[in-house]
């Protein structure tokens, strides 16, 4: 039964030695360009909502509390780590860290909230210049005369209302 081919195969295997690693007993760092959990830097963010507009999973929400205060929340539940938010951010305020061990049983752990004081161009009300026309179509700058319509950048509300599991996130849809 142990013919030549089997012996050859067995030799190939033994030559390779052991390749499995004792993870998670010993950690294994990810390579430099790895797309892990995004980290938002509040100091650099200008509140343009480009990330929110370009997130395919609609996991970044923007709400204007008043003319000068914009709240940006990264919910992180359905984030696919695609990195589009980091791509379009004009201020490079979003970096994709090397963190991939993000499992948790409390969904609020993934949330990042930025409270931003906004200042805009007094003439056009815009914050920055977009790169591609396709991205431009999705950017909505903050215009202080259009607060009613620009309340939520998120296009559809269905995915919020139908997910009561998000218990430690109080999203006030009809707030101030």
């Amino acid at each position, binding site marked *: 039964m142990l013919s030549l*081919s089997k012996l050859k*195969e067995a030799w190939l295997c033994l030559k390779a030695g052991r390749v499995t690693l004792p993870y998670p007993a010993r950690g294994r760092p990810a390579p430099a360009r790895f797309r892990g959990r995004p980290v938002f830097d509040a100091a650099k963010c200008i509140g343009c909502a480009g990330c929110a507009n370009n997130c395919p999973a609609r996991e970044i929400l923007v709400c204007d509390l008043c003319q000068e205060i914009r709240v940006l929340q990264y919910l992180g539940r359905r984030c696919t780590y695609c990195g589009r938010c980091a791509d379009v951010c004009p201020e490079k305020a979003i970096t994709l860290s090397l963190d991939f061990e993000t499992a948790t049983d409390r969904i609020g752990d993934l949330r990042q909230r930025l409270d931003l004081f906004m200042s805009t161009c007094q003439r056009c009300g815009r914050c920055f210049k977009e790169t*591609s026309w396709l991205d431009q179509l*999705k950017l909505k700058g903050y215009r202080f005369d259009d607060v009613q319509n620009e309340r939520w950048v998120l296009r559809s509300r269905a995915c919020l209302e139908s997910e009561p599991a998000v218990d430690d996130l109080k999203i006030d849809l009809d707030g101030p």
Partner: protein
Amino acid sequence: MTARERLGQLRTKFGSAIRRADVPGDHRLFVYVESCALKAVCRYLFLDLDARYVVSIGADDRPYSGGFLLAHDFAFDADHLLCSVLTHLPAENPKADSISGVVPAANWAEREIRDLVGIEPVGHPYPKRLVLPDGWPENAHPLRKDAPWNEVPAGFDPEREFQFDDPPEGCIVVPFGPFHPTLDEPAHFRLFIEGERVRGCEYRGFMVHRGIEKLAESVLTYNDIPMMAERICGICGCVHNVAYAQAVESAAGVTIPPRAEYIRTIMLEVERLHSHLLWVGLACHIVGFDTLFMQSWRIREPLMWAAEKISGNRKTYALCLIGGVRWEITPELALELRQVLDRLETEWRAVAAAVSLDKNLQKRTRGVGVAGPALVKSAGLIGPVARAAGVEIDCRRDHPYAAYDRVEFNVITADGCDVWSRVVVRMNEVFESVRIVRQCLEKMEPGPLQSPVAAELPVGRLGLSSVEAPRGESHHFVITGENNRPRRWRVRAPTYQNLQAVPAMIKDQQIADMTISLGSIDPCFSCTDRIETIDLKSGETRIWTQEELIRNLRP
């Protein structure tokens, strides 16, 4: 023959039945015909001109042209031509002659159009529900523009059951799936067994239907969709990502920089390598040979690390945008990729040599799951399944895209038509892929990664793209639209065609060979089920109650 010459042939034969034709280049042809002539035109193309059937598409065009659109896509592989035959149907009670009698490969596509868009295929040999869940009400067609993407229609009945066919005389029913150790994704094959032999099979699938096409039309935008397209499949995601981007670029007339083309080619071939190595391991696992399974995956692992270094993730590369790619391959990464490939090639040669002498493995795979050239033609089979039957089709050579027209490679075929031939084809394609990546790395010139998209994309244009996935041809059909999103996007993954031939492949074979036959087409059910459904909570996937499971498992 160029596109214009083919159009000339059609015009000669059908004259006034052809209303309009668009020839955007030598390699694409869009012919609009009268709906009454549709079946005749398709028969002429399939039987007389020997075109290969690709897919049928239905679209709700009522807001734009007042009616429905029905398209049948064909491919002339030798002419490097992709052709689409379209017709407009009235908004009230749309129906067209079914072409499944002439083109058996269109069986599922027409049933899907019937389920999702509501165009009735008149004369279809097997008009049973295909995609929609059992409890979905009649006359609620999700892909129509007036159907919401996020609501269950009124009349959804969770208790309604699917009517299975009766087994033939003397056979017992053995359910294979939706839960089975070999299947990574749910699918239900109802096998009709006589003793140890399979006499027939009925398939009920589409259990991982996620509503991707509807989302693309309603909620996402052009640059969001590649991220979603990538998740159609866990193994060949990059293929869908690239194919979609290419379809839109072809429709809108966007050209991408050459470096981006080379990078797309490299990542596609890296994906092919990982997929084939994975598959060989899986095939061995199915026949109980776990050692070779472990070895294939061990050899594959450095490739996954290299992909992670280049794109940021082992598998979901998130590579394309409309107009280019996102990741640069630096000289250090190129060097590392070369080293990984050198090592992989050496080790794989040793494995391939050992496997080709292995009588034990060949005994389980020779003469099993046979699909000959006749079945390949009638069922429209593609990929290694077709190449293992001696049919030499490969989209990289027949419909060149990205940088494939600038690299040299062989199309690997075998003659056995069985599982063993498919193993041989896939093992040898690994070497060709390594060759292609090496050529790309040499020929790449420095340059930009993305073309600027200077204006809004034109509306209402059609784009076709065929990309050779590891499993076969993956074909995307796009109609560009308003609001920064397509009007219609149809994905035809290769498993969609190959699965239709499984009942023919396993007929009169032993039940033990069922899994390896199914495994030999390298099924990717996630690729196959990707059209619309509804809300996440109820009805999207059928939850099998314990008593249903018990009832289905007992003879």
